[in-house]
């Protein structure tokens, strides 16, 4: 009988419950327990999804895109299984389904929105085949963990081949994602930003991936860049070029929230008024929109989701401590960091800045990527004072020193924040990488509530 299955689900839920009580993230542990007891758990539960399964992959924007897609589908009255915490390796995916199962051990859901770490796709796809794969972008990221970007692309290609009937929803502006999609021979839906955006001047010295054609090896030519290697490209040798854009963002205004219009292939226009900040979020919104539109939903009810969006999880999250506004933002790789710098620079007011860099396993032990980030731009960002912090504060101090930007190193994040609060600047940005996020966020919450 299915006794083992019930046991797997019950124990997994219990484990998760205990972890929550203890104030810890128990999601991956719960997943591990479930599949150890009942190896077919993911296959069976995912098989009960009534309509479609979406998988979101790509270096940056996975969690934001996946959660937005989930919210859009729910606004259409659909029930959705989603790994919203961003636990995106096999055990995290398993626990999303297990925790969504009812008492009788079944899933009662129309859709699943699952983000999957690129390197984990080959381990996840034997359990279920997605109907859609959203590919957000491909940037260099933690080379000591993932290896070269070419390795990630090979892995993804193999994984996509395992799902021959699935549709790819791809960022057309990213030459790496577009060439990968092109090579698979799958049905492709594209999104992008066809024209340059005046409010988002591209930095000339950014590191760009894939400058050479993935098909023939010739140097690609670009009409313009949005950021990193995202832009309008073509190969002068074999003719490969940015594919036609099915969902295009136009009339973009960045300001205090992203406003733009989405034009689709039928030339119908959909206005976006959102509380999201940061140019890169245009792509995340486009991806989620393309996802729901592909299932022929109207998207009539997504407006309040976008307008009332409250940033959390350290993605442009706001705190207020002693009348100082503090904006916390996560960046894990050069492309993400460069976009964060752009977001800081959109704010013309004087500000203090703290940069926290760790080198734990989840961050990548190799911190040489700091030198691929355009920190030089901070010299024109109206910054009053900079403190560097975290385990590799001294490396970050050198990074600023060799950009002729003065900074101080204070290893403790708490001391760094307290030091900055003395300044009466009332406007603070804290940029952190992955393992620095949790502690910094907890600290800011406690400070905001007056507990420290």
């Amino acid at each position, binding site marked *: 009988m299915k006794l083992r299955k019930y046991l797997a689900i019950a124990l997994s839920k219990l484990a998760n419950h205990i972890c929550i009580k203890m104030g810890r993230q128990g999601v991956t542990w719960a997943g591990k327990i479930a599949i150890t007891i009942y190896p077919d758990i993911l296959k069976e539960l995912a098989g009960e999804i009534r309509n479609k399964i979406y998988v979101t992959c790509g270096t940056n924007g996975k969690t934001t895109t996946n959660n937005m897609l989930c919210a859009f589908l729910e606004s259409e009255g659909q029930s959705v299984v989603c790994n919203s915490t961003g636990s995106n390796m096999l055990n995290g995916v398993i626990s999303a389904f297990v925790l969504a199962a009812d008492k009788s051990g079944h899933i009662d859901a129309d859709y699943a929105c699952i983000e999957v770490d690129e390197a984990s796709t080959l381990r996840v796809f034997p359990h279920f085949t997605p109907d859609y794969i959203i590919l957000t972008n491909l940037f260099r990221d933690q*080379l*000591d963990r993932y290896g*070269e970007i070419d390795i990630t692309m090979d892995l993804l290609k193999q994984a996509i081949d395992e799902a021959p009937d699935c549709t790819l929803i791809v960022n057309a502006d990213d030459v790496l994602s577009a060439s990968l999609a092109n090579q698979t021979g799958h049905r492709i839906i594209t999104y992008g930003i066809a024209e340059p955006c005046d409010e988002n001047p591209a930095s000339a010295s950014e590191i760009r991936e894939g400058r050479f054609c993935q098909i023939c090896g010739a140097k690609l030519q670009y009409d313009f860049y949005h950021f990193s290697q995202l832009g309008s490209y073509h190969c002068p040798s074999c003719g490969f070029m940015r594919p036609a854009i099915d969902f295009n963002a136009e009339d973009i205004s960045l300001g205090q929230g992203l406003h733009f219009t989405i034009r689709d292939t039928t030339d119908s226009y959909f206005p976006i008024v959102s509380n999201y900040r940061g140019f890169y979020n245009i792509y995340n919104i486009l991806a989620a929109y393309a996802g729901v539109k592909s299932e022929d939903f109207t998207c009539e009810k997504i407006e309040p989701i976008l307008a009332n969006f409250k940033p959390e999880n350290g993605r442009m999250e706001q705190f207020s401590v002693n009348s100082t506004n503090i904006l916390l933002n996560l960046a894990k790789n050069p492309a993400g960091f460069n976009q964060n710098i752009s977001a800081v620079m959109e704010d013309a007011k004087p500000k203090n800045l703290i940069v926290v860099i760790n080198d734990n396993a989840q961050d990548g032990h190799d911190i040489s*990527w700091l*030198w691929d980030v355009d920190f030089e731009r901070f010299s024109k960002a109206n910054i009053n004072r900079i403190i560097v912090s975290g385990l590799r504060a*001294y490396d970050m101090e050198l990074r600023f020193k060799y950009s002729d930007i003065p900074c101080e190193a204070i290893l403790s994040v708490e001391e760094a924040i307290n030091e900055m609060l003395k300044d009466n600047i009332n406007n603070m940005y804290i940029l952190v990488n992955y393992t620095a996020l949790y502690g910094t966020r907890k600290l800011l919450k406690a400070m905001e509530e007056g507990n420290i």
Partner: protein
Amino acid sequence: MELTIGHLYPDLLNLYGDRGNIRCMQKRLEWRGISAHIKEFQLHDNIDFNELDIVLLGGGSDREQKLVCQELQSIKSDFKQYVEEYGVVIAICGGYQLLGSHYQIGAETISGLELVDLYTRQEEGRLIGNITISSDLFDMPVTGFENHGGRTYIGENVSPLGKVITGYGNTDERDYEGVHYKNVIGTYLHGPLLPKNPELCDYILTKALERKYKESISLSPLDDTAEIRANKYAQGRK
């Protein structure tokens, strides 16, 4: 005084913050009132080695390194002459491997520049992690990060850059790291290499100035408190 630094193929060989090495040389010259000119060369550009005082060859992915290899054959003899005439070269990761006669990847052999007596063979597993070495050339240990699938075997008539204190180095033996031949330094250490190892950076700059101006050079000291602190901290990282 002035120096010209040639950065070879930054579009392709730019994997591990190599821009930091260029910036470090540039700043440490400028802070002493010496002009630094940076020349970036792209594939198919003509390179006149007579104009260059320092050449930086960085690391790239295997795919990109192969693209470079074909091109390198056309500059091989000029580059060889530059090296034999004590031209300064700093070659890192993939660039280090390219200095040798060949790079063996399974059944495939990629021809190198044949500038230094060494060759590289890809072997099982990658050697990844923080690394610290001691070098007779410097008082301070040299520290950085290594990430390579190739094992590099250096010839009997060339010296390693240093002895491994922690990390792997040229091979799995954890004995020696890098190579030093005339004014060529090849190493697997990135991080990038130079900012945390100011002595090594100044050594390169001194050699280049001495070669260019044909006189003994003693660079004025800089305040390296931050560099030394970062170096010492990195030595202790697992």
